[in-house]
């Protein structure tokens, strides 16, 4: 379980627990309750937010 | 396309070209003075002997509407009408323009009035990025000059020398056939 009210706190906690993730999480898109953000650093999170981390994909 | 190149090297042009080389008295690589008619206007320009008509039009004459897509005669973006014939300017030597009559995209409109092809291309949204559009309009004009009522198949095969990567050709063909159906071409 991870307690975080903001995406940057969440990522920081993840890297603390899994240091090997540091490189991958530098460039990550974050889905919060179905909406996928490229620039997610300060997006707030609710206790019941459904969060997924994705490779950042934009297109061509 | 290489076969067409041979067709465009007329005896007259080659003859005068070599005359000038012999009589210029300077290095072979000096520029040649060309007199031609472009879009109804008498026009003069200087060009290298080996330069393409495409490069001469875009640089020496300053008509940048004719585009360079490949320089091998495969994309049609450089389509112009030379002495009544549709040609890829990238495969014509600039000296070939000596004494010739040229129509480029800049000469298609009639003063303030767009040519019906230009108007229909706009109405049908027959362009997206627009880079191929000058070549298509010149090529389509040559088609309708030769065949005022082409079938869809004839239109597609005539325009097969013009590449478009954006539209899939659907709206382009519709625009050209719409002009043909209206029967009003110049």
């Amino acid at each position, binding site marked *: 379980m991870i307690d975080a009210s903001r995406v940057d706190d969440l990522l920081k906690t993840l890297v603390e627990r899994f240091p090997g993730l540091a490189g991958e999480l530098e*460039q990550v898109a974050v889905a919060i309750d179905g909406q996928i953000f490229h620039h997610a650093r300060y997006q707030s999170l609710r206790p019941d937010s459904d969060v997924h981390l994705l490779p950042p994909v934009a297109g061509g | 396309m290489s076969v067409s190149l041979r067709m465009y090297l007329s005896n007259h042009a080659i003859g005068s070209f070599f005359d000038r080389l012999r009589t210029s008295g300077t290095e072979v690589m000096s520029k040649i003075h060309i007199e031609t008619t472009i879009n109804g206007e008498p026009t003069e320009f200087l060009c290298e002997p080996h330069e393409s008509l495409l490069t001469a039009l875009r640089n020496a004459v300053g008509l940048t509407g004719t585009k*360079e897509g490949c320089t091998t005669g495969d994309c049609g973006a450089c389509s112009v009408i030379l002495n009544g014939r549709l040609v890829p300017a990238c495969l014509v030597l600039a000296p070939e323009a000596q004494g010739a009559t040229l129509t480029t995209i800049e000469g298609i409109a009639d003063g303030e009035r767009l040519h019906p092809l*230009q108007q229909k291309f706009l109405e049908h*949204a027959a362009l997206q990025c627009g880079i191929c559009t000058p070549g298509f309009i010149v090529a389509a004009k040559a088609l309708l000059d030769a065949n005022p009522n082409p079938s869809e198949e004839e239109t597609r095969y005539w325009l097969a020398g013009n590449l478009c*990567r954006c539209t899939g050709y659907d709206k382009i*063909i519709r625009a050209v056939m719409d002009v043909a159906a209206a029967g009003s071409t110049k």
Partner: protein
Amino acid sequence: MTDFAYIGTRPIRHDGVDKVTGRAAYGADFSLPGMLHGAILRSPHAHARIVSIDTSAAEAMPGVKAVITGKDIPPNSAKLVLGGEAALDLHDMGDNLLAHDKALYNGHAIAAVAATTVDDAREAAELIRVEYEVLTPVTGIDQAIAPGAPRLHQAFANNIAHRMELKRGDAESAFKDADVVVEREFRTPMVHQGYIEPHACVARIGQDGRAIVWCSTQGPFVVRDACAAILGMDAALIKVIASEIGGGFGGKIVVYLEPLAILLSKKTNRPVKMVMSRDEVFRATGPTSGTKIRARFGAKRDGTLVAASVSLWYEAGAYRGSPAGAGAMCCLTPYRIPNFFIEAHDVVVNKPKVAAYRAPGSPMAMFATESVVDDIARQLDIDPIELRLKNAVSEGDQAPYGPKYGPIGLKQVLDAAKNHPHYQAPLAANQGRGVACGFWFNAGMNSSATITLNPDGSAAVFTGNPDIGGTRVAQALMVAEELGIPVERVRPHVADTDSAGHTDVTGGSRVCYATGNAVIQAARDVRDQLRARAAKIWKTDVDRVGWEAGRAVSLDGADGSAGRDSKTLTVSDLAAQMPHTGGPIVGRAAVSMPMAGPGFAAHICDLEVDPETGRSTVVRYTAIQDVGKAVHPSYVEGQMQGGASQGIGWALNEEYVFNADGVMENAGFLDYRMPVASDLPMIDTVIVEVANPLHPYGVRGVGEVPIVPPLATVANAMRGATGVRFTELPLSPPRVLQGLTEWRQSTFQAAGPTTQAALTRS
């Protein structure tokens, strides 16, 4: 908003007359006085160590003003965020611009020359003496990942730069419960975006260190930031002016020329123009990955999909970074599958570094999965659209990449396909019909917009997004809709990087959605200011002023609403009074949008195959797609038709042909065979609109999805026409003929002696 006055109409685009008269200025159409011309010397070898470079002969040539090599690019190991796929490593980008230690592909830039004419520059480049130690090239995935393969980069064992896994449930167990399992291995070639306009730029740097770059690009801010980062310059000193762009499709997001032109301009104190030849575009820009993909699906007899396993290997080219991850994320998106395993590998090979190409990664992956789904349908004798409908995702289902789908239109698209007259039309001999789905995310990200109001009530709208396919007229429609002024009275502009607020690239199907939303919000800002001006004139509060159809309406009726005799002021009235009511009105907005909500499509193709020559003809094609909301339907249809054509070319004829030395043999439009007008029929389009709740009008984005379905659609049609499942693209005549011959031979060999005798007699 459901009743639109302008959205959904088809006005003539504002830049249209310039484009049909040849006046529109593209990258190569721009010149400056005193300009020099740049040319690049490129590696003839696919893989070689650069032992030495001697530029002295080039520098001594009359007309040559400067020569640069890799050592002129400062070493850099930082990452640069381009706002898209995995951050571009600056070190890789700098090395790609001009090689340092190794030439990693045929065409890799080694040196650049600035001279007074193009011919002199090219001639001088040939005088540069490069000593190479030729190395064994890695020319394909199988060779690259085999044990003992030559390594392009020390860091990547087996040339695998990255691996990603996506899983759900337990696929291997679930396969055991399936009634039918189909597994196939697919191959797709490296292909190019094929934009007709080669890359071109002019750069000028002054004695004050300020640079201006005119260039054809999908992302002027990317050009600015990339040049600044690579050259170690302050981005504030670089202004980028985007020309009209002659196609991009993702291939004009990365920079290939601009930093070199700036460097040459700095060395010569003159403007420098650089234009690529078509040969260079093929060899030395960013095509998309060739791939190897294994796909396995398991289903119950009633058509329920129970398991899927997909393994993807994508060529990254000379440096890491292919869209394998995106392919992994896309390939199972249309279906509710409780158990799956997907692995994606990024493989470096001695080919040009791949760049984005319209829905990067998705077409190849969905070629594989949609072909297998088709075979599942055949084995179960279920209609291929019915099978897809049975398993189709809808709102609330979980996407393979994690989050739940919001409102999506897959079922509506499949229903429209099923009910389309094309699907019921009879087929002639040697014809087959194929159906397949496609998906793309549709990007959001950051955009800005500014709107200025003129005293006559007309408006101008500025964004930093180059217009590749009609986005300016779409923006004008949005401003017209919001302000209630005629669309002809709105002038849309693409502004340079000093004049426009930051905007992310034109690409990712995002301009109409994200930048469009910025335009709409900026227009609403103008509207709010206009209401405030009306309030001032009417001596009331702004909340007593409403807005209806292009006019401010007084709400000072007895019940607080606009009555029949309410006072009104039009945009023109208010604009004329701007100097007295508070000064000029400028509207602005900046947005940071999440992804739009995915787009789904289904295409139907009737293909006729000549069994004697292997030649295929597309006799009928229909593209059906959920676009959310079509702002200008003609240009939405155009995106669907254009994307379908690129996909058809990818399926039938396009491929990079490399020889054993890793040198491309067909670097021109004659032999890199893209569809021409005589190859295609009219392409029918059906626009489905399932509103995207993240956008005021429901816009979802349209540009990329259309290239995804055609690969499998055509291959499925080929299966129908010939009875043969082809798994390797392109389905060019020699390959089809060989496949048909092999099928006939194996069918013959598998037949009993009586049948064989009968076949031999006939």
